[in-house]
């Protein structure tokens, strides 16, 4: 085999190749950190590993002097609560509207133009509006996530509903089904795995809006903490938080994928 497109890595080689960039990145960081520390021991930009450890210990395993809470876990809890509430609300609205506009042409004709129009509004542009309407509490942050990802979910699920072969709808009619029965027995079960797909795609956006909302108006949360300590150039806090958010995002994605494979084996096998 001479062509590069035909050379496939063995399993161990593939793993090694995949891990390599992570190791390089860490080594590069270590080298950068040490170089800067050598010049200026008080350098804050690239903290050392021991500084990370002490920052994590201070935030995650020592109660806050002011409130007695474990800030890191409190932040995580608040953020996840907002994120999940927002995502679940968006999923329900997206599923309902996507399914109904896709299944019933009259409703589709009625709602699709306005859904398209709303989906073009940049959500961050209406954040002030949300803050004014829903106050500075939890609701406005959840609403930003809902406003941010629902239009995408509706439009995606509308398309997925349309993609279900018409033959199946005709078949169901010849089996005596009415519109409602077709929606809940033929379309809905086939749209659910596609909803999970769409959620996986929109989770990144949901995190974006969560952190944006927390940066602007919050008293706790992962995004709030990052934006709070940036005033002190506390890279020792920011970097572990960013990695934690990345890990959480990865775990949520993984969980959705596993759920989908477990609950809808026919969907994954047929692909």
């Amino acid at each position, binding site marked *: 085999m001479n062509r590069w497109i035909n050379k496939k890595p063995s399993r161990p080689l593939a793993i090694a190749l995949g891990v390599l960039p992570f190791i390089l990145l860490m080594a590069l960081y270590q080298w950068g950190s040490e170089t800067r520390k050598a010049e200026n021991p008080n350098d804050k930009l690239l903290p050392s590993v021991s500084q990370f450890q002490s920052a994590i210990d201070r935030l995650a395993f020592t109660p806050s002097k002011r409130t007695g809470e474990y800030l890191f876990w409190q932040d995580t809890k608040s953020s996840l609560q907002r994120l999940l509430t927002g995502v679940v609300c968006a999923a329900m609205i997206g599923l309902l509207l996507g399914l109904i506009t896709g299944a019933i042409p009259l409703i589709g004709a009625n709602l699709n133009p306005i859904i398209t129009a709303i989906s073009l509004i940049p959500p961050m542009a209406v954040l002030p509006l949300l803050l004014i309407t829903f106050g500075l509490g939890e609701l406005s942050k959840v609403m930003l996530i809902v406003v941010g990802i629902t239009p995408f979910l509706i439009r995606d699920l509308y398309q997925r509903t349309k993609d279900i*072969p018409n*033959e*199946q709808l*005709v*078949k*169901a*009619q*010849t*089996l*005596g*089904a*009415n519109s*409602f*029965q077709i929606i*809940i*027995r*033929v379309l809905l*079960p*086939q749209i659910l795995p596609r909803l999970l797909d769409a959620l996986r795609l929109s989770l990144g956006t949901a995190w974006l809006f969560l952190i944006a909302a927390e940066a602007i108006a919050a008293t706790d949360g992962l995004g709030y903490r990052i934006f709070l300590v940036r005033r002190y150039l506390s890279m020792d806090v920011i970097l572990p938080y960013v990695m934690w958010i990345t890990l959480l995002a990865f775990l949520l994605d993984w969980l959705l994928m596993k759920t989908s494979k477990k609950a*809808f*084996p*026919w*969907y994954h*096998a*047929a692909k």
Partner: protein
Amino acid sequence: MSNYQIEFRHVEKSYGENLVLENINCQVKQGEFITMVGTSGCGKSTFLNMLLGTESHTQGDILLDGQPILAEPSPERGIVFQKYSVFPHLTVRDNVAISKEFESSFIGRLFGKQRNKALDEADKWLDAVGLLNAKHKYPHELSGGMQQRLAIAQALIKHPKVLLLDEPFGALDPGIRKDMHKLVLDLWQKYHLTIFMVTHDLEEGFYLGTRLWVFDKTRHDPHAQNRFGSTITFDLPVGKTDEESLEIIEESLSLHALSA
């Protein structure tokens, strides 16, 4: 009332300027097995869709048991498509039982005793098409031929007046196709079905059925291909399915295939 189950009277189908079918006149009795052949675009599928109710005719009358045919699909007319006929998210058994659930439950779902009864009836039909062993599988675990068997069982459990087959075996291997022919003929005789089958395989049309219809254009306008529509140019009873007729039809079809 006439003793024909299905009647087409001066039926015409056009899409705007584009005339697809014209002057369709035919009568079909209960229990006939009609195979329909023709070149692609000759309107045989359009004809089947008009019977099915997914397309409406633009002129004339289509009667089912003396009544105008419903303009949307209904349980009177069962259908098997070439593919996508079965529900991928349901097991083989549920695929057949679901029509019982549509029938007796508003939300389309039965529980307990009623469900068991529906499943028992589904098993009976799965047995009739030779799929009983696969009843707990999902459609993606079945071969193409088995999926078509399932689609047939789905249709038959509703006891349709007419069974419509739209190139049902077009995607199957020749060996499997033979088995399916046998199955369809058996079911047709056993349950006295009226069957309309579209096929692009002339041999298949000759081998199955009691009547063979050929769809073709009788008039051609070289300057406007869509000016004239197709009609039924041959209507052969099964007794006439000899080599000579086969050759005549084959010749007429290939002539038009060349000119098209």
